[in-house]
């Protein structure tokens, strides 16, 4: 009488990645649907009874029709039941992505769990208790009805909800859409499948976040997985396998250059060399380096920028500290030397409103110099 299903959530299809310009952003957008295709294939391969999507399948209720239709296409490899729970991003409002999807005439295996009603089937082996969000923020606990919902004897009770678990996820500071951490126990659930937190995580007994299958942000939270869950009976302990499915890897790297060279930053990037084209990297640089090093760093960063899927460099904390060698390289005498000295003084004076501009100016001069003044 076992029941096996795939637990996933927070697809956030239609997320635009507007801050990542050009093709890189567009590819991130389309990959989210492509990854769902992977999930569908995985579900088929593992022969699961159902796929439970615990909310936020779509980034918003106002995604394009094209996005909805392409998502439906991506689901096709798995012909079992897809149970979609409206989350806060795609809440089941009067008009929502779900009402639109219904009008598009989806396949019969697509179930929209937009009402707090039991979803039955599977020869009575299992029953799904969904707690859909019909508003973006619900102040009342939507899972409360689980406790009193009567189900057939012997059926495995599986909860499906979206939100933060009270007292457990301080990161999700929202007071709305809160789920008590003992709901699985009080409602006799074998597994409470949650969405909202983007990492794979067991948050309470029998209570799991699957996280998003395709990582969508720089955060050190074990994202990019789906859960294959096996339940042998209503009271049997859950067996959860987190399967990595994410195409892109997101990294947040911080390097502080203390030795006057740019090695620390470049070394940190070198560690990500393998599979570089799948990596989305945010690099924060700190410290002070010479103009020569800064010039070299620029050249190297440009290389990495081309190798990574996307590289975002925050060098606000990086300061050029022109050395005598730098200055001698520029010019040891004449008005250039005078100009360098002045810029250097300005750059070093944090009270000067043009200090930042002076630093960049020094770097520019150095680049011009290295380019032969052209």
């Amino acid at each position, binding site marked *: 009488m076992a029941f096996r299903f795939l637990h996933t959530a927070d697809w956030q299809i*239609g*997320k*635009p*990645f*507007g*801050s*990542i*310009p050009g093709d890189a*952003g567009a590819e991130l957008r389309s990959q989210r649907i492509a990854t769902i295709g992977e999930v569908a294939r995985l579900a088929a391969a593992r022969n699961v009874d159902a796929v439970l999507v615990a909310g936020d399948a779509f*980034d*918003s*209720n*106002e*995604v*394009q*029709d*094209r*996005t909805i239709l392409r998502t439906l296409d991506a689901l096709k490899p798995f012909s079992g039941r897809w149970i979609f729970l409206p989350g806060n991003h795609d809440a089941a*409002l*009067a*008009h*929502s*992505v779900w009402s*639109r999807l219904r*009008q598009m005439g989806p396949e019969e295996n697509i179930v929209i769990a937009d009402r707090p009603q039991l979803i039955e089937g599977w020869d009575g082996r299992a029953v799904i208790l969904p707690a859909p969000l019909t508003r973006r923020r619900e102040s009342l606990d939507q899972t409360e009805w689980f406790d009193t919902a009567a189900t057939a004897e012997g059926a495995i009770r599986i909860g499906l909800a979206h939100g933060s678990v009270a007292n457990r996820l301080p990161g999700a500071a929202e007071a709305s859409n809160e789920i008590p951490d003992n709901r699985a126990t009080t409602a006799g659930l074998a597994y409470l499948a949650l969405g909202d937190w983007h990492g794979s995580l067991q948050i309470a007994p029998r209570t799991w976040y699957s996280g998003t299958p395709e990582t969508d942000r720089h955060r050190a939270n074990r994202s990019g997985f789906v859960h294959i869950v096996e339940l042998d009976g209503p009271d049997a302990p859950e067996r959860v396998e987190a399967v990595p499915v994410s195409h892109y890897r997101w990294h947040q790297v911080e390097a502080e250059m203390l030795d006057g060279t740019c090695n620390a930053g470049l070394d940190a990037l070198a560690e990500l060399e393998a599979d570089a084209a799948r990596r989305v990297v945010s690099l924060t640089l700190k410290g002070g380096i010479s103009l020569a090093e800064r010039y070299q760093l620029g050249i190297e960063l440009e290389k990495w920028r081309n190798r990574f899927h996307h590289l975002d460099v925050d060098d606000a904390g990086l300061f050029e500290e022109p050395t005598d060698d730098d200055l001698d390289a*520029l*010019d040891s*005498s*004449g*008005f*250039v*030397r*005078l*100009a360098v000295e*002045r*810029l250097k003084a*300005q750059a070093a004076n944090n009270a000067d409103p*043009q200090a*930042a*501009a*002076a*630093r*960049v*100016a020094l*770097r*520019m*001069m150095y680049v*011009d*110099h290295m*380019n*032969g*003044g*052209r």
Partner: protein
Amino acid sequence: MKLRRIEVKDFRKLGHVVIDDLGDGLNVIVGDNEAGKSTLLAALRAALFERHRVGGAAAAAMQPYNQSVRPEVALEFERDGAIWNLRKAFCQRQEAQLSGNGERYTGDAVEDKLAEMFGFTPSSSGGTKPQEHHGVFGLLWVEQGMSHRQLGIGAGRNHLASALEREIGQVTGGERGRALLSAAEARRDQFWDKRGNPRGDFKSLAGKIEDDRQQLADMNRQMAEHDERVNRLAGIQNILARYQRDDTLEVLRKRAAAAREAFAAVSGLEEALRAAESSAERAKLRHEASVARNATRQKLIADLAADLGASESARLAREEASATLARLDAVAAQAATRLDKMVEAERAATARLRGMEQALARRQAAQAVARLTGQLKLAEEADEARRKALALVQGATLTAEDLAALEKLERGVEQARMRLEAASVRITLHPSAGQAAQVGGKPVGAELSLSRDTTLVLEGFGEIGIHPGGGTEELARAADQSAQALESALRRLGLADIAAARAALRQQDTARAEVKTHGATVAALAPNGIEALRQELVRNALLAEGGEAQAVEPADIEAARRASVEIEAQLRGAEVELRERRNAVEAARRELAVLDERVSVAETRCARLREELASARATADDRLLDEEVERERQAFQAANEARDAARAALAGADPEAKQIALKQAEQSEREIEADIRRLDVEKREIEAALRALGKDGLGEQLALLEGQITAAEAKLKSVALEAEAAKLLHTTLADAQRETKDRWLAPVRERSAPYLRLIQADSDIVLHDETFEIEQLVRNGVAEPFGALSVGAREQIAVITRIALADILREAGQEACIVLDDALVNTDEARLERMHLVLGKAAQNQQVLILTCRERDFLQLGAPIRRM
């Protein structure tokens, strides 16, 4: 270096020329056109800079036209206090010698030494070019026709630069610096336009962000509208769901049908009430009519009774008034009689009083006659006396003036006599007894006063002639004349003497007084004149004569008068009384007439009413009317009760509630129907609108745009920083360059300033910091490019600059003479004079050779002049 001697042989057109004894300062070398002064400069150059072994075009150029000779140049110059001799022969048997300062060189060593001494770079092969190979002399030796051009510093630059460095110890950024500056400028121009506004990508990025923000605002607005619609849709769905769940419309329809039924039942009761109200109204009217008829009859009866009473009382009143009239008539007659008697008595009293008054008047007249008679007599006497005195006054001719004249004359006589007497001879005679004396035969007394010649005869003696002297004669005549004047005046007035005159005047005064006294007496006695007095007397006499005298006393008259007044008062009282009585009679009579009328009217009314009542009773007697009233009253009461019953029945059925209920039920049904229809329509509209919006993925677009804006803002921030940096870099470099340049060229400015002042106040020469070529002339703060100046100005500025540079070089130990070959040909006379001052000033420290074909121009220069 200072040139001391130049000797040229067979060099181009010059056969043999020697110019020696060249001085320290200015030296003018005059040569006519074609005389070869420019050739002299070429020969100088050849000696110093051309290799003696030079061949080809350079060597050929030294040969005279169409000849092949051996051009030779020999120079003697002084350098650092030492005298040097240089000698070069070209083309044939080439030769070079240099000696001085205890040194001696020949052949190629000469050229090497020269290059070392003057710091130029000898040409490796072929001829030399001044700007490339002549070092500072390329700068300071100016060929004819070149003076107005740029300096052509060329190879002199390094000398100058090192000379300037010596002063300021710093060099420019060089080629590399300029490359950096131009790169910085190019970079700045990527970001900023000429006016300092953003341009290119920098500008369009900011513009794009602005556009995107605008678009974002639009989309947010659309999104808000979208959300609003979704909310509205949810609301509509809720309402419709509730209607459906509650089957609201069907419930309302049933309720309306029930209300309509209930309302129909109430309508019957309303109809019954209206009928009952109508019949009650009719019964009421009938009852009121019967009551009114009865009341009319009763009133008629009562009126008749009242009128009969009134008629009787009117008659009684009339009788009483008649009696009163008779009584009043009698009383009035008595009063008339009394009045008649009183009239008689009054008349008698008046007659008696008049008689007494007349008697009294007569007695008084008689008394007046007696008094007036005496009075008249006295008045007439006084008047007589007055008239007499008046006649006397009027007859008198003598006046007080006359008397005064007489008295004056008398005083004249007296004075004349006194004067005469004083002048006369007084003689006192004391005759012996019995003896007498005579004058003129007449005896004289004991004393004589003689005023004229007199002969006194003394008895016993004889005669004594006496002759008074001293004008007695004249005095005696005056005395006589005065006596005669008095005499004649008295005669004229008819008076004997002056005493008579006085008496006559006194008499007149007395008479005048009497006139006055008597006049007063007459006026007192007869104030109105004597005639009036006389008339009064006559009148009184006539009065006293009438009637007999009667002894009447004033007291009697007063008594009689009082009696008369009393009787008159009684008479007036009687008259008043009689008038009142008669008025009373008249009033009584009028009242009687009124009462007569009233009696008549009352009787007429009574008759009419009696007739009316009789006629009415003939139709319906009083009892019949009473019965009718009672019958109608009962009918009315019954109708009222029926109406009240109907009303109570209707009120019991609560028709208003039924009506309201019906209205409400029907309205609710309509409202809900309309609401459902309306909501349905709105729902479909909203759904259609949302479908349309959803198709384009507004949310996706919005999120995308937000991300893009965030990215673009970050980009803009970084680009803005770059732009700022580019600007800063360029500004800093340019400022640094300008400042360095200023410092660099300051010595040139300083050196040229004293010369410039001589031709142009407040001006400044600006050189290029690298090439040292003249860039600008700044006059009065206005910069002009060198090329834009006039030819004359250019050659002046160029000459001054060369002098200034020569100063700098000299101070740096590189003294070199300046050679100017007709360098100021374009300069006007006035400026030329100023330029002579410049040259003179330069020559104080510097050897200057001037080659010219215009000797006249340089005569005033005060320099030695040599002719070629």
